């Protein structure tokens, strides 16, 4: 294991870093016949989005392409140079690049499950065990629930696996279907990470323009949080917590007010909920700063004030994606205590496996 034995320049726990694999990288970890299906047919990874991509290098920062031409996020030394050492990360949490994506197998569950396992092994060997600062996410094919639970049991106790990245599909996350997965998560001290995996919205459809889709990311976050809270997931799994990745945070006060008011009016429908939804959110749900709107200090503090908590947001860069947030430039200047919470302490308190 290596780390750069220096104290970090900036105490940052970055909760969204995208490492990326090609099918070829996974061959070593993929059993047959799955490996041969891909190899013999020269199967190319599918593209997920119906748009030409937003920026000058697809979904990635143009300067994050590995100098030898390999895709952004695919090379540890380059990521160390450009991100971890440069900014001086204390920890970074890997969240994958949805590609190859077990959630996109459209019914070939056994292939998706095999790919998720191969991905986890590749991630552990090539990233988590090569840099002390990196922690990882368990990839599962949630459509094959038994397979997903087997996978959680297989790799979930790895000391550097901190969360399960649950794909968004056609069932909302409060649905009892997922509860056994939450039970397995709780058993291994894994949190649930939500990244806007495809399909991006509940209905599985795409708006006409990328700018619409990207603007509406928080709506899919609002749906899942609402659904999990009112379906009683956090009453049933009191240790389970939810990290909402890449949806921003400025919508959170609205959601808290809305859910509390609804609860006051309609509690009789969900009598298993014993606390105000905003209290449940404060205890169980964390949101990422990225992608952050351009807020001045006053605006930023007013959002925090409206949340009634400065412990709910965690810093993320989303490296190497095009909407990367620079730790130096994306947030306004903040008081040291608050800065410390957002840049590191909130995430440290959230993930029990981070020391």
């Amino acid at each position: 294991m290596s780390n750069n034995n220096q104290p970090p320049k900036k105490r940052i726990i970055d909760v969204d870093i995208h490492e990326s694999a090609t099918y070829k990288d996974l061959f070593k970890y993929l059993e047959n016949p799955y490996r041969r299906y891909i190899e013999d047919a020269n199967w190319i990874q599918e593209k997920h989005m119906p748009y030409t991509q937003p920026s000058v290098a697809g979904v990635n920062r143009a300067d994050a392409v590995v100098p030898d031409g390999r895709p952004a996020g695919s090379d540890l030394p380059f990521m160390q140079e450009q991100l971890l050492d440069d900014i001086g990360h204390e920890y970074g949490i890997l969240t994958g690049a949805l590609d190859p994506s077990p959630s996109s197998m459209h019914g070939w569950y056994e292939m998706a499950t095999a790919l998720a396992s191969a991905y986890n092994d590749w991630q552990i060997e090539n990233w988590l065990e090569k840099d002390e600062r990196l922690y990882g996410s368990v990839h599962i094919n949630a459509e094959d629930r038994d397979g997903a639970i087997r996978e959680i049991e297989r790799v979930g106790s790895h000391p550097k696996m901190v969360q399960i990245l649950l794909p968004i599909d056609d069932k909302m996350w409060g649905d009892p279907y997922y509860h056994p997965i939450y039970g397995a998560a709780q058993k291994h001290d894994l949190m649930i990470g939500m990244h806007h995996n495809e399909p991006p919205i509940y209905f599985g459809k795409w708006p006409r323009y990328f700018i619409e889709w990207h603007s509406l990311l928080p709506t899919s976050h609002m749906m899942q949080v609402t659904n999990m809270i009112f379906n009683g997931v956090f009453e049933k799994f009191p240790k389970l917590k939810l990290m909402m990745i890449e949806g921003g945070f400025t919508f959170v006060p609205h959601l808290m007010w809305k859910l509390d008011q609804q609860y006051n009016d309609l509690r009789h429908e969900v009598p298993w909920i014993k606390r105000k939804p905003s209290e449940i959110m404060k205890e169980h749900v964390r949101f990422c700063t990225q992608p952050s709107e351009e807020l001045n200090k006053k605006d930023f503090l007013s959002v925090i004030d409206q949340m009634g908590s400065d412990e709910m947001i965690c810093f993320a860069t989303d490296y190497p994606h095009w909407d990367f947030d620079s730790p130096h430039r994306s947030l306004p200047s903040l008081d040291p205590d608050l800065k410390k919470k957002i840049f590191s302490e909130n995430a440290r308190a959230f993930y029990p496996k981070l020391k």
Partner: protein
Amino acid sequence: MKQQTVCHVNDMQPGELRETELGRISIVVCKTPDGEFYAFTNKCIHQGGPLSKGKLCGAPQSDNPGEYTFCQDGEILRCPWHGREFNVKDDGRMLANPKHKLPSFPVKIEDDYVIVYK
């Protein structure tokens, strides 16, 4: 006056970007398709992305949803991070919000060499 010789005028292709230093400032030099040169700070005014890693491209324009015309090919500097577009022919003004512009630097051509100065 600080100045820096960048290259021979023919060393850059129309539509090409090049990074250079002017003292301690990193500069991006642009050559537009008409052979003109422009120089700007190489740190995007949004979050500091290195503009020289972006693209000199064009600007889709339209007054009707769903219709496009493609204009100013090679005159729009697009940031490699969040893709903001800056019009190099209009003093580096941002297309979406012309109130903002990239700090620019004068360029002169002497004996067929491109020189930026401040």
